[in-house]
């Protein structure tokens, strides 16, 4: 009985650490993946596309994540895959954020007809379902590398951010401290960048991580359907090949499970950072 309660307490403590450290945990995992991606050539013991061993070897010390039917080292592939998968995420995050910021901020700052038009466009893009559109576009442009995927995800994914930024802009623009800056004679550009924008940073960050999550998942889905370029190494294509070679049926679970878990882990950490920032911006959640 007592031991049980102790246990419960312990778990509770872990959870509470987890709760406080949600953002920290997420950030550490993301940093870890980024490090892996950058250092891929140093970390990966083998070339990701060379046949380096017998096919379909379960994880072992020489092949941490096992090998696939082509005798490729899956650890090396996952490490290299982190590179492109993250790149797609980061690129989409950056492009989308810039796009959302431009649209959202202009709509929010200028108001009037500009706002009406931009908001309508934003709402339309918000409603039109993303993935089907992406699939259709991707089918048309005959994807060769990851760049078109980044492009497609970005042009379909900016609307949410734009909407958030717009409303934030609208509230900030009417804050007294902005009015005060105007009365003091600050230049409008300086007002946007020194008074308003810094107050939106957490939101921009949250949006960035949200988009990254979306991009990483979407990229994986597209690659999985075979709409990407299956010859590059990303987590999505690793899954594509695993699926094509029926890794699960072969008993090569490691081929299928590990990259999927990597996506999920990256996804969770991105979502966590996003969520934590959400809590920070919304003080009501923080007190939880």
């Amino acid at each position, binding site marked *: 009985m007592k031991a049980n309660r102790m246990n419960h307490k312990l778990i509770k403590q872990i959870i509470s650490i987890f709760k406080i450290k949600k953002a920290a945990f997420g950030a550490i995992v993301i940093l870890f993946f980024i490090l892996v991606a950058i250092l891929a050539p140093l970390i990966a013991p083998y070339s990701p596309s060379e046949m380096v061993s017998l096919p379909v070897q379960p994880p072992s010390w020489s092949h941490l994540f096992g090998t696939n039917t082509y005798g490729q080292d899956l650890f090396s592939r996952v490490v290299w895959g982190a590179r492109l998968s993250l790149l797609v995420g980061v690129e989409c995050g950056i492009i989308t954020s810039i796009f959302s910021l431009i649209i959202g901020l202009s709509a929010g700052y200028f108001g009037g007809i500009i706002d009406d038009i931009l908001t309508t466009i934003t709402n*339309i893009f918000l409603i039109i379902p993303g993935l089907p559109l992406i699939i259709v576009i991707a089918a048309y442009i005959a994807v060769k590398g990851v760049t078109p995927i980044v492009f497609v995800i970005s042009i379909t994914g900016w609307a*949410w951010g734009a909407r958030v930024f717009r409303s934030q802009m609208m509230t900030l623009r009417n804050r007294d401290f902005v009015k005060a800056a105007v009365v003091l004679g600050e230049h409008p550009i300086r007002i946007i960048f020194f008074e308003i924008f810094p107050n939106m940073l957490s939101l921009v960050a949250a949006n960035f991580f949200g988009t990254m999550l979306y991009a990483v998942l979407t990229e994986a889905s597209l690659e999985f359907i075979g709409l990407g370029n299956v010859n590059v190494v990303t987590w999505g294509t690793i899954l594509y090949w695993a699926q094509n070679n029926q890794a699960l049926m072969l008993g090569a679970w490691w081929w299928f499970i590990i990259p999927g878990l990597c*996506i999920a882990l990256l996804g969770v950490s991105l979502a*966590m950072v996003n969520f934590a920032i959400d809590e920070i911006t919304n003080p*009501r959640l923080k007190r939880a």
Partner: protein
Amino acid sequence: MKYLIRKIMFLLLTIWAALTINFILPRLMPGNPAEVMVAKFRGKITPQAMNALKIAFGIDVHQNIFVQYFRYIQNTMKGNFGISITYFPMPVKSMLAQSIPWTLGLVGTSTIIAFTLGTLLGIKSAWKRNNFLADMSVPIGLFLKSIPYFWLALLFLYLFSFKLSWFPLAGGSSGKFIGFKEVLDILYHSILPAFTIVVAASGGWILTMRNNMISVLSEDYITFAAAKGLKEKEIMYKYGARNAILPNMTGFAMALGFIIGGSLLTEMVFSYPGVGYILYQAVESLDYPLMQAIFLFISLAVLVANFLADVTYVLLDPRVRSGGKE
């Protein structure tokens, strides 16, 4: 009322936008359907037969773009999307007619289940904050939100259908039964795909609903309700959940698009005879007429669902009804 009219206007505008995107896309891209057709028949076809087929498809590229656009709109209005290439000579329309009920059934119900379940869990977990189980909903929700649908679907398929033989491997029905038994059979086939969608989609709802609920719980009217001596249940649902659900109604649009996207993948994995599966076929064989029509259909479905969500929102929130706020 005004709000509704505005929403209807917006709905029409969005439909028009979707239509136009649909029209512009293939015209921006290189290549033409004739090439695709050669591809489709994998060289089995002689040039003569090819020409004859082109005529059958009604492909004529030498037309003013505006005329084309006008024609396109006209045809779409009539539900005339042309002939599918993958399923030649099936009209795209009948392919849609054949697959839409499956998708609506599967995705519709599972989305509703996911929404209800996620919402309920979100409400509970916000209400019972600081309780171990309730707080676990956050990491679990985050995890579910972050796993790729197709991956989960394949895993489930392997585990539950192949290894454990609990569910069929593929298809929407076994085609063996008629009458009531057929209904049961169809339900049986839909359990696993629906389960996948529910599991993957409810994560997001749990999180947003929890956040909304926590926000609402710190509102003064909740304390006021407690001060009135109302019972906990009443406070939780009538005062808490009822208000917390409102922002979700507008968030529905985004989520719905996302879920439908995800369920396309689910259908592909489970060989479910819905539009997702057909889209996969269309994409694989570059069946543009079919692809476009499916995109249009999905957009329409999302738009309409969204519109319904808006209407519900109006019913639930009197402030909007009188045109007060967006």
